[in-house]
């Protein structure tokens, strides 16, 4: 290659790279704007929040956050957080146990009817949840379990989260079969193989499922809206809804925005800590679908 053409090539490469970064940064600015906005807005007095165009106030105030300490309608903000935490952690435990057991059966045990059950499981992935909503509510109402966390959590303990079963099956199928066979010759049963061999090797899939489950439960709105009707049991999503007025202009607009930010924090922190697991988990779900 002659020196002139390589020089021109380098120049072209540099402008191309510049354009690439400019494009990416432009998208980034639009994507991050709402997040940056809510951070700035939570330090503004209520009357400035909507119509001040400066992202960060020149005189930031803390009163929106201090106001949160007073709670909402006699309920401490921490109650909402505690409730959300109970729901989210309970969901994580359930999904990890029940989905990994189911996935092990699909991936590692040859039993009659496996293929049929697997297609049924994939079918539930596409089923709109709303078809189940009303009969499930009727059932839990008859069992007097409305206004408890049982309706929100029971599905997690019964492996109804088909997406995570699918994710774990994909992962387990890729583990070398020789491991099972060696363990079997040593006299290990399925429970031992599941617990001491497959589970430890599945850690990435388990972490991905755990974090997604936590975030989904934390963000869940429809479940708590339908099943919880006593403010003391509200999760953060429902507690947040108490900040709005019937006309949509919250009396305490600053408090509402500050609470919105605080409610987002756990999810954002999880994301920063585990983004690799989340993105890789998402990415593999689409391959070999």
């Amino acid at each position, binding site marked *: 290659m002659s020196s002139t053409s390589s020089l021109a090539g380098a120049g072209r490469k540099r402008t191309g790279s510049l354009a690439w970064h400019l494009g990416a940064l432009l998208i980034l600015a639009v994507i991050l704007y709402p997040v940056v906005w809510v951070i700035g807005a939570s330090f503004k007095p209520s009357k400035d929040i*909507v119509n001040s165009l400066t992202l960060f106030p020149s005189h930031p105030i803390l009163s929106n956050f201090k106001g949160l300490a007073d709670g909402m309608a006699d309920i401490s903000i921490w109650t909402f957080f505690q409730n959300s935490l109970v729901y989210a952690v309970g969901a994580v435990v359930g999904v990890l146990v029940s989905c990994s057991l189911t996935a092990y059966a699909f991936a590692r045990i040859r039993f009659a009817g*496996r293929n049929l059950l697997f297609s049924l499981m994939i079918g539930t992935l596409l089923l*709109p949840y709303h078809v189940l909503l009303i009969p499930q509510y009727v059932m839990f109402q008859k069992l007097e379990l409305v206004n408890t966390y049982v309706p929100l959590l029971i599905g997690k303990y019964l492996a109804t989260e088909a997406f995570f079963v699918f994710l774990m099956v994909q992962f387990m199928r890729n583990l070398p079969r020789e491991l099972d066979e060696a363990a079997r010759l040593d006299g290990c049963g399925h429970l031992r193989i599941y617990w001491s061999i497959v589970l430890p090797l599945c850690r990435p899939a388990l972490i991905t499922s755990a974090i997604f489950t936590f975030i989904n439960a934390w963000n869940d709105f429809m479940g708590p809206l339908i099943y919880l009707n006593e403010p003391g049991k509200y999760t953060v999503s429902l507690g947040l809804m108490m900040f709005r007025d019937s006309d949509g202009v919250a009396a305490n607009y600053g408090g509402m925005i500050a609470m919105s930010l605080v409610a987002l924090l756990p999810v954002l922190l999880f994301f920063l800590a585990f983004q690799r697991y989340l993105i890789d988990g998402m990415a593999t779900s689409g391959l070999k679908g």
Partner: protein
Amino acid sequence: MGTAVTLVKDSVPTTRAARSAATARTGRPGRRRENLAGYLFMSPWIAGFLLLTAGPMVASLYFAFTDYNLFNTPRWIGFDNFTRMFDDPRWQKSVEVTAKYVVIGTPLKLLLALGVALLLAQSRRGQAFYRAAFYAPSLIGASVSVGFVWRSLFSDDAVVDRAQSFLGFHVGGWVGNADWVLYCLVALTVWQFGAPMVIFLAGLKQVPRELYEAAEMDGAGPFRRFWNITLPMISPVLFFNVLLETIHSFQIFGSAYVVSNTSCGPADATLVYTCYLYQQGFKNSQMGFASAMAWMLLLAVALVTAALFWSQKKWVHYEEGAR
């Protein structure tokens, strides 16, 4: 650990090893034991499937043909719920709103996802950073917090309104405007393009480099290369994204409910299907009517899914042996 395993394996009497190998191949008792183990491991899922999926589906089909308000015994009324539904202007409105949302929002979201994935796939420095940042909205987009933020950003005199007025066409806040408010929800779903983008990106990484090099040798330009190589090669991933995103957007609830301040308005402009289902079922205690609505939704989703799977033969290319 490897040596330990081989040591133990060597110490196992050969007769037992031979027997277990034989039963694994042909023996009856082994197979029966495998069946038992399979169903034991599956038992949580089976219980969940019967109790929380199959049972409720049958019940909901039954309720759809009854008059039921949760406290009376369901009274069989035949197809009345369905005829009433088709004549109901609010039901028609909810179908229209949802169809508009799906038809506008999903393609926009996927186009943006594919476009940005193509940009990021050029494998420059910072790709991992951008990928993570663009993905973040998909995690928080469904939260009530973001619903409030959206409501604020799109209200009167807020940033979107000001930018639009600055560009010369004044509409005021989108949130209070029946003609515009749905686009506010569309913007919210498009903002979450990161999840399908990540899947596209993974698909793009699997396209063999040699194909592009060969095409370039043959003088194919970037557009030809995209059309003849990239698109067919990622068509399975495209199919997956179209299927999942379409099914999901049919079921939008939370963001419509929060952005419209629980009213699904103004003037029913954000009355998406599930909002109306919620109002009928849980506000008006019309469990029968709401079940009938749910089955119509299931039917619509099933039809769209079937159509997509049928069309798949024409445009989705699976690699030999990959399936």
